[in-house]
């Protein structure tokens, strides 16, 4: 029997997209746990949704895993202390996306003492599981940061029978999901089984790009060992960016197109990041909330690119310093080079959704000179969602709301394929954002 026996092939074709150099330099370096930082900055907003309200105040003693922020809002996820120590202040900090949000700053006492004897939550039924996932603080760990319990709490009348586990990891450089597949294979399979059992999925597809054969091998082997082959299957996808985008992975794995403004559950499936699934499984076993994550540290300014297990709230500079810098960096990116955010400085804390920190020197990233648009249409060819960035740009400049709407600007997910492909070096993603903002403003005015 070959190692990849039973591997599913993608059933749908994804058009567009781009082929960037993979640069998965850290793929075969095992994850290292970093020494405890002296201080962590834990922002109250690490997800899409409402920010949490701090439940501790200055001077409080907190222990690792203790709840320090929660919200009454449904679309939100609680945050926990990632180290034990004393709350030195509660105030506003700037986070990776540039926003200023309230945060709890904890001076570590170095002991990393756990808050309580964590107990496995009761999650035998749907409500229990969803409450448990909410309590764990889990948000999409693939980069989107959407609260996981909201996603899992799909309307009961919707027929949702498939769980697609996203292990595509199509962004260059990032290997944290890949390491999860290699290092925590069992957790992924257990998590998939548990979620299916409680939420009633009849099929689980672990979808992986074909440039990661080893991940597919270990997953296939584990499924075989656990005799889960009738429920869980591994699927190989074409390696191209942005294969890991929700709409693209559903198109590829199930040959179903999610209409603009709709969700995977509208076509009968849920998409979860592979690391999120593995975390869910660990949480259900131990009850230990989300207080650390694996981060890929790479880029040409970094001396030794690595995958690090870091506590939430450790600052970006400290994380980079652990890997060392060989040259002075000019640009630091939280996330991948296609969709990540360039940071103004290194003082911002790492968030739940940040899967990579990349540091590049001046000239370490290709800088394309801007030329006149020659209407070559390469942006349209590259757009996986069949949008026409060049026409959208024109409509925005003309302030033509109807035209913009017809061109579907709101379905743009800002994957950056258009700007990547543009030979004129136009900042097309910014143009798309301008178009969206303009349309939102117009809609507000209408109301």
């Amino acid at each position, binding site marked *: 029997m070959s190692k990849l026996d039973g591997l599913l092939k993608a059933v749908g074709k994804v058009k567009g997209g781009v082929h960037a150099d993979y640069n998965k330099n850290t793929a075969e370096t095992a994850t290292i746990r970093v020494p405890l930082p002296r201080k962590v900055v834990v922002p109250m907003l690490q997800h899409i949704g409402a920010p949490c309200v701090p439940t501790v105040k200055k001077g409080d003693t907190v222990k690792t895993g203790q709840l320090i922020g929660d919200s009454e809002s449904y679309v939100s996820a609680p945050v926990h202390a990632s180290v034990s120590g004393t709350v030195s202040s509660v105030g506003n900090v700037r986070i990776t996306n540039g926003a200023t949000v309230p945060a709890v700053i904890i001076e570590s006492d170095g002991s990393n003492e756990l808050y309580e004897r964590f107990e496995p939550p009761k999650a035998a039924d749907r409500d229990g599981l969803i409450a448990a996932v909410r309590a764990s603080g889990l948000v999409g760990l693939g980069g989107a940061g959407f609260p996981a319990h909201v996603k899992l709490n799909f309307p009961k009348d919707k027929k949702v029978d498939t769980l697609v586990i996203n292990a595509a990891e199509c962004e260059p450089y990032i290997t944290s999901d890949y390491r999860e597949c290699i290092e925590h294979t069992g957790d992924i399979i257990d998590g998939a089984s548990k979620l299916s059992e409680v939420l009633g999925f009849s099929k689980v597809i672990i979808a992986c790009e074909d440039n990661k054969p080893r991940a597919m091998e270990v997953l296939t082997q584990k499924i075989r060992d656990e005799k889960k082959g009738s429920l869980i299957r591994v699927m190989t996808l074409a390696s191209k960016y942005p294969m890991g985008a929700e709409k693209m992975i559903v198109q590829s794995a199930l040959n179903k197109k999610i209409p603009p403004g709709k969700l995977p559950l509208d076509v009968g499936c849920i998409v979860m990041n592979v690391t999120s699934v593995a975390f869910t499984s660990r949480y259900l076993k131990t009850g230990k909330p989300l207080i650390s994550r694996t981060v890929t540290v790479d880029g040409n300014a970094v001396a030794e690119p690595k995958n690090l297990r870091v506590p939430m709230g450790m600052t970006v500079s400290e994380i980079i310093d652990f890997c060392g810098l060989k040259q002075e960096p000019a640009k630091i990116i939280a996330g991948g080079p296609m969709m990540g955010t360039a940071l103004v400085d*290194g003082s911002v804390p790492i968030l739940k959704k940040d899967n990579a920190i990349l540091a590049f020197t001046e000239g370490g990233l290709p800088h394309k000179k801007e030329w006149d648009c020659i209407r070559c249409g390469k942006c349209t060819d590259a757009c996986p969602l069949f949008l026409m960035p060049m026409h959208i740009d024109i409509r925005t400049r003309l302030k033509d709301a109807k035209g913009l709407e017809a061109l579907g600007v709101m379905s743009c997910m800002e994957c950056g394929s258009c700007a990547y492909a543009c030979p*004129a070096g136009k900042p097309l993603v910014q143009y798309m954002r301008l178009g969206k903002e303009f349309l939102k403003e117009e809609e507000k005015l209408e109301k």
Partner: protein
Amino acid sequence: MKNKFSSLKIMEKNKLFTVSASPHISSRETVPGIMRDVLISLSPALAAAVLIFGFRSLLVTAVCVISCILSEYLSRKAMKRKNTVSDLSATVTGLLLAFNLPVDMPLWMAAVGSVFAIVVVKQFFGGLGNNFVNPAIGGRIMLLVCFPVAMSTWALPMAWRTKPDVTTGATLLYKLSGMDMSGDIAEGMGAAGLPSMFDMLIGRRGGSLGEACTIALILGGVYLIARKIIKPVIPLSFIGTVAVIMLFAGKFDLDFLGYQIMGGGLILGAVFMATDYVTCPSTNKGKLVFGIGCGVITAVIRLYGSLPEGVSYSIIIMNILTPLIDRVTALKPFGFVKEKAEKEAKA
């Protein structure tokens, strides 16, 4: 860990890093890179032109290219806009315009055409990306209207080797090579000196500088398609449409078909001019409509028109229609469902 740089230390110095919108990486393709590829793809045809029509073809080409570059530079300067010579688009226009001229074209006329192409057709409308018709074709049509005799005086192929000063009178070879006056085709075919199919392929025939050698043009086209500079949609639909119409019009005479396809500027136009990004639709569907439109207009002009300019006029007409084609062939976003279909599905 000992390291020369520490991001903590850098931070203490209050160093701010570069911020920009994502994505932070990009493809290697650039505008001048694309133009360079177009120039490379045109070089076999230029070499063929030198072999067929002699060194004067180089001279004509040089005049066109230099006057295009100069007028681009000077007009931008006069309009107080940034210098765009380095994007190489003016060079491409110069080369393409030269390819559309007879080798014995007076040089000053070639220069006038170049200036018109760059200044009037391109820069007056906002420069690269904003011209509504292809500058080289605009230049060619302007020359044809102003200097019809010079524009249709074709040199005999290889004449430069034997008797350098001999050029033929316009009409005969014109009919033979251009095949643009269908009514006279029978008469023309009867006349002596009609090139064989093989001559048509290798370019041993009269015609404009760049259009003679079919093989060189196809070579250039294959290069452009292989380098993904152009898509094959427009050349295939354009030439295919002409071929189908001519097949019926010529009552399945394959020689007639061969002359129609290889004669005149059809291949040059379909591969290098109709595919100009700026003036053709941006979607595949739009490109197909554009190509078929060009083919139909070319065929109709060649069969029924009193003007010889089938290819040029067809491209310029479709250029003008491009914004409309773009509008009706606009793509629907991924997963788009028509509201009607959606309602039916709900019901």
